[in-house]
């Protein structure tokens, strides 16, 4: 697709879409969103970019291979589940650490394995969709 308007617009659009995808990932625990939706949005962002500028440039913008991203995501999700073992809980039990307090209400923010797991989901979805999409575009 050789449209100057699309190519120029895509650059701004991609950045916005990508930030939006991270926003969706982070708000997921309380509001509509989460790793799946975030990952899909992130994939849309890079697919739009590849349609505008070609798969080669989109790939270099991603910096890592999509398959690698997906694999790392799966690893992160697994590690998030394994953390529970160190606290004597069954596999994949969510672990929470409250910063500056001892409960949700009193703390400033929390560190938890649930979000780590969701980040893993995000990366898996992003990497998987992109690997198919790029293979598709290069094939046709």
């Amino acid at each position: 697709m050789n449209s100057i308007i699309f190519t120029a617009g895509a650059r701004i659009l991609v950045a916005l879409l990508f930030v939006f995808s991270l926003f969706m990932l982070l708000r997921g625990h309380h509001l509509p969103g989460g790793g799946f939706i975030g990952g899909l949005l992130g994939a849309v962002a890079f697919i739009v970019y590849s349609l505008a500028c070609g798969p080669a440039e989109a790939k270099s913008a991603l910096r890592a291979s999509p398959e690698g991203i997906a694999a790392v995501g799966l690893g992160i999700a697994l590690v998030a589940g394994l953390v529970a073992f160190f606290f004597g809980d069954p596999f994949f039990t969510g672990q929470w650490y409250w910063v500056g307090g001892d409960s949700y209400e009193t703390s400033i923010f929390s560190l938890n394995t649930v979000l780590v797991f969701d980040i893993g989901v995000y990366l898996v979805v992003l990497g998987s969709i992109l690997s198919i999409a790029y293979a598709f575009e290069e094939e046709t």
Partner: protein
Amino acid sequence: MAEPSDPNAPWVTPAGMITVALTAALFLFFLQYLPVVPRDGAVQWVWDWIPSLQVRLSFWLDGLSLMFALLITGIGTLVMLYAARYLAGHPQYNRFALYLFSFMLSMLGLVLADNLIALFVFWELTTFTSYLLIGFSHTDPKSRRNALQALLLTAAGGLALLAGFILIGITQGTFELSQLNAAGSMAEHPIYLGILILVLLGAFTKSAQVPFHFWLPNAMAAPTPVSAYLHSATMVKAGVYLLARMHPSLSGSDVWVYTLTIFGAVTAVFASFMALRQTDLKQTLAYTTLMALGTLVMFLAGSSGYAITAAMTFLLVHSLYKAGLFLVIGIIDHETGTRDANVLGGLARAMPITAVAAGLSGLAMAGIPPFLGFIAKEVAYAGALTMAISWFVVIMGMAAFALMFAVALIVAWKPFFGPQGDLPRTPHEGPWAMVLGPITLAVIGLLAGLLPGVTAYYLVEPAVAAVMGAPDVGGRLKLWAGFNLPLLLSVLTFALGFVLYKVHARLRAMLADMEARAIDMDASWDVFLDRFMALAKGQTRVIQTGVLRHYMFVTFAVFALSVLVTLILRPAAAPFLDFTGIGFVEWGIAALIIAGTVLVVLTSSRIAALVGLGVVGIGVALIFIAYSAPDVAITQILVELLVVVLLAVALLKMPHLDRTGKQTHRPFDAGLAVLVGGVTTWVLLRVTNAPFDRRLTDFFEASSWTEAFGRNIVNVILVDFRTLDTFGEIAVVIVAALGAYALLKGGQKAPPDDTPDATKEDR
């Protein structure tokens, strides 16, 4: 046909020495049970494996398994040492050592397993590892073909065996052999015959009984150490072991007695004649192995103490001398470069130690006193006289033993003391690592015969007791049992055997002539396999049309019909349509979806059809929004978007939809589409008519904040309550993505013809 071996190559390699040491350690481990088992009875080790299916990893060491375990590890140690020298410098020796060691372990598991399912697993493991060993010279098409033949035949028998085992487990309520055998014969059970046939199929294919015999001589394509190991104490004895192991529970019927007697006897005599007919010493030995297996099966038909003692003694003798003789043939082949019985002769001067080993093993094979072979033969005749059709067993036994006497002279006497022929290489004595095995085995064979009381007490009698399922009276193994009928039969056998040796050259020509006219099972196997492949190809062409439309039609038709049948078979109150509370917005969404569907069906442009599908998808997402399911709606919209974009990229390159050709399939497609739609609607109506169960909803509403600190229930379920499910899903996503990636990327790069005719040769 000597395998590539460099005499100067270092043969003390880590792979070889570690496997030898481990096997020797296992041998010593089992040796410590030698005094224990005759005194205290069987030893058992148990681990629960799959408790819910009653599959236990339980090992049972009684007289029978101990004898086998000692043979497997003892001969295994000698063979591995021998192989290290024999294949010194072979580029794939390490691989070979791994195969041989894995085979040894599987065989050990087989004879120790107490649970039928565990036994089956080890049984199949020996099949696979022996396949790797037989096909070790994988560059040779003949070797590959013979390995595959052995694999297919024994694995097919293995499947029958599994079916038999499962039937036993269901009818008897246990998979533990020790319990089955303690319960006694199951001959009265109504499906006993079925079980027996299935188990015998497994045992007969593995132990190469006629008419499944042909894979065994072909398996000689393997390097000689493999033949020595597989065809003496291990692989082919597995079937015999199984028959002995299950003797208490499966014998005790006329079917058992006559089937085993006839198949065993026919195999034994047929194989003895075939052995005489061969000129390649290794082939000769292969057929004598068949003969031994037939004899063993024949004696296991009986239930008397003498018959079983004959089987167990002969099993021990045969394992020792057969392994020794195979190893001797390997040395001859290694040192002279030929295995032709017509050429070899006068080697005794060049290789005296090998000659001694061969002579001792040959005497044991011929059954000359005071070797254990002689005692085995005496007991065998005594046992034959106690069996059901004793005249038949005695005649067949004598034919086999006499022929074996002649073959022993051909294999062990003639190459060393006969007239010398024209040899390809000047013979030398073999290296010690190779001579050690045959000489050790030969000496053990001699000692076992000189001390029959010790052999009987430690090895044979505990094994006989295990097979009979009752304590054995013992005292049957004697070097001198007085002037009796067995002794007379023995003398007759020697005379007959000597005559056969004298005329064997003429007999050989005659047998070759007969063989040319008989049915060739080996060739029939190829024909069978070809026809089978043709059948498979034909039916694949019918079922797998390669047209996507057909696959989709079948998939949807199966879905619609199976759901429809369920709906009809399980009637419920007729669903009613309730349109109250459906407002302008909902009707608008429905109209949008219908419009999209109509566009998809009528358009002649692929892109327009795709957009139509997109409209349908967005309509569905709008329904989710209207009924407040934002997470699902967002996901739906994004997936629709991605599908449309990706398909558009692909479809842009494709030609315009061709509507000019035959469209006969369209009415069927339309009918199917209406059916699927109707069935789905009906199901949904029935589901929504049923009262809504709020238990899960209530639980998640109550606990998602208190226990998982999240207000978005959908996300909390995904990342907290049902995390393992989500983890499984993302793993599937990755696998699917890699699969699609491989399909898209892999197809174009594969060279068009990279393995020419490989499949044809492999058959």
